[in-house]
């Protein structure tokens, strides 16, 4: 078993990305994400990797766009306002069918907001904050270990589908230290294989076409009929991802559940402790924790609405965003209630218990 290291989430995901073969990283500093960029600044030179502090988030995402077009593993990271600035670039990367990993260490918004943990960018991440029909694969960690593990997963998914993947984390996961175990670094052979995996479409001469080479990296199709085909193909890719890549955790699910909670990331951590306490007190509550928030585990949710379940409770660190997806999953079968917390504040397990038991007013 690998050694456990006590590490901040921001650093753990950076270390894991490097181990996953990421050798290019472009970003701009922002709290509460800065440890990530600082870790990369320190480590990339040691692995012959590229670290560039871009002049802005806009430049950073476009550096990612360029580097990804050459077929290598590349990553950027930021926090909420900085992610908003990347929206155009993300839409381009998605439109051009390029792999890339983007980490959002969310903070309180809107606007400058504050720098405390929040989940207010759920809509932006899952419904396309940029223009046009595109989807990001969005992974939502809830521990530092999972945050780190997702770096590896994110790159694999990005490469598999040639699609940008976002890790939707928050200031809490970025700033806190927890013990974490890392996978071993990619071997030299694995790195070489990674390097070549996209030779059939990427810019960069490959062995089969050592000379003349004209690959185009592009999201433009000025002929509407061609663009139509292009977007339909994107749509089919998204369908495939929805079919294959849904991930979620079932927590304390049983046919004794009176209430089903749905929560992701940091909110789910706190919900778990409420559920544990209620279980001890004799009330059975189950939880679905979406791990991919897109593609979304609609079926997983509707499948656990066993007979005894009276209602579904959604807990989020925002004014109510994922609750729409939960309603789509429940599709009118049961009441869906919402508990939110904003401004970078966390709810307490007690607040969640009260919501579950319907005793909030008391």
């Amino acid at each position, binding site marked *: 078993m690998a050694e456990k290291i006590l590490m901040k989430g921001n650093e753990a995901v950076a270390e894991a990305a490097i181990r996953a073969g990421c050798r290019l990283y472009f970003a701009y500093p922002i709290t509460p994400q800065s440890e990530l960029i600082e870790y990369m600044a320190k480590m990339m030179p040691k692995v012959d990797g590229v670290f560039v502090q871009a002049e802005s988030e806009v430049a950073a995402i476009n550096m990612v766009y360029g580097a990804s077009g050459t077929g290598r593993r590349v990553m950027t990271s930021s926090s909420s306002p900085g992610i908003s600035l990347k929206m155009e670039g993300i839409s381009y990367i998605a439109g051009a069918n390029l792999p890339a990993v983007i980490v959002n260490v969310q903070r309180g918004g809107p606007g400058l907001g504050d*720098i405390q943990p929040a989940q207010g960018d759920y809509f932006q991440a899952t419904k396309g904050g940029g223009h046009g029909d595109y989807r990001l694969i969005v992974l939502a960690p809830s521990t530092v270990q999972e945050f780190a593990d997702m770096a590896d997963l994110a790159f694999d998914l990005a490469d598999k589908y040639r699609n940008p993947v976002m890790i939707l984390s928050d200031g809490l996961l970025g700033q806190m*230290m927890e*013990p974490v175990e890392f996978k071993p670094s990619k071997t030299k052979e694995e790195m070489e294989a990674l390097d070549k995996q996209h030779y059939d479409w990427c810019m960069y001469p490959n062995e089969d076409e050592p000379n003349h080479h004209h690959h185009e990296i592009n999201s433009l199709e000025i002929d509407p009929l061609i663009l139509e085909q292009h977007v339909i193909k994107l749509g089919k890719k998204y369908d495939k991802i929805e079919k294959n890549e849904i991930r979620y955790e079932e927590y304390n699910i049983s046919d004794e559940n009176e209430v089903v909670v749905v929560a992701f990331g940091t909110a789910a951590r706190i919900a778990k402790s409420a559920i544990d306490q209620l279980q001890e007190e004799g009330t059975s509550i189950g939880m679905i924790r979406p791990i991919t928030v897109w593609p979304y585990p609609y079926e997983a949710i509707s499948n656990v609405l066993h007979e005894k379940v009276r209602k579904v409770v959604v807990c989020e660190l925002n004014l109510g965003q994922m609750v729409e997806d939960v309603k789509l999953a429940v599709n009118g079968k049961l009441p869906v209630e919402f508990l939110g917390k904003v401004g970078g504040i966390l709810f307490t397990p007690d607040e969640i218990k009260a919501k579950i038991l319907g005793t909030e007013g008391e």
Partner: protein
Amino acid sequence: MKTEIISSGFGGQGALTIGKFLAKAGMGDGLNVSWLPSYGPEMRGGTANVSVVIADRAIASPLVSYPDILIALNQPSIDKFGSDIKEKGLLIYNTDMCPHGTKRKDIDVIEAPMNSIAREIGSMKVLNMVAIGIVIGKTGLVKYETLENDLTGFLQKKNPDLLELNLIAIKKGIEIGKK
């Protein structure tokens, strides 16, 4: 078992490091741990604090609202968090920087002139190690050996002299804690 700790002081007093070494030692002892600092510009020249949780099951929220133990290196830390300590909880504070102490009667209180002790030992840098020692002496929350091990790994090469002073400070703290 779950122990929730806040460690707090002026920037530079080492409050965050207290948290880090407690968490590290907890991890070494095979427990689940989390460490969450306060962060942000409001810290500038103000109070730095950290939430540490050490538990034998999964840790839900790493944010400590009502600590079992508050380690206060200065008065503002008591003013800010003192009233949140759980009933029967523990307050460890630095009398040199906490002129007003606390008025609470429903908690255990350990006072220590940490500045003076550190000065005596020979470096203000070990002030925080006194506090760690007190926690260990009083509660046995983490094992001294694990901590010593961690510190040795961390300092042996870089600064063996400081390591020595650190260990002295911890032992001094343990003594106080055991009283």
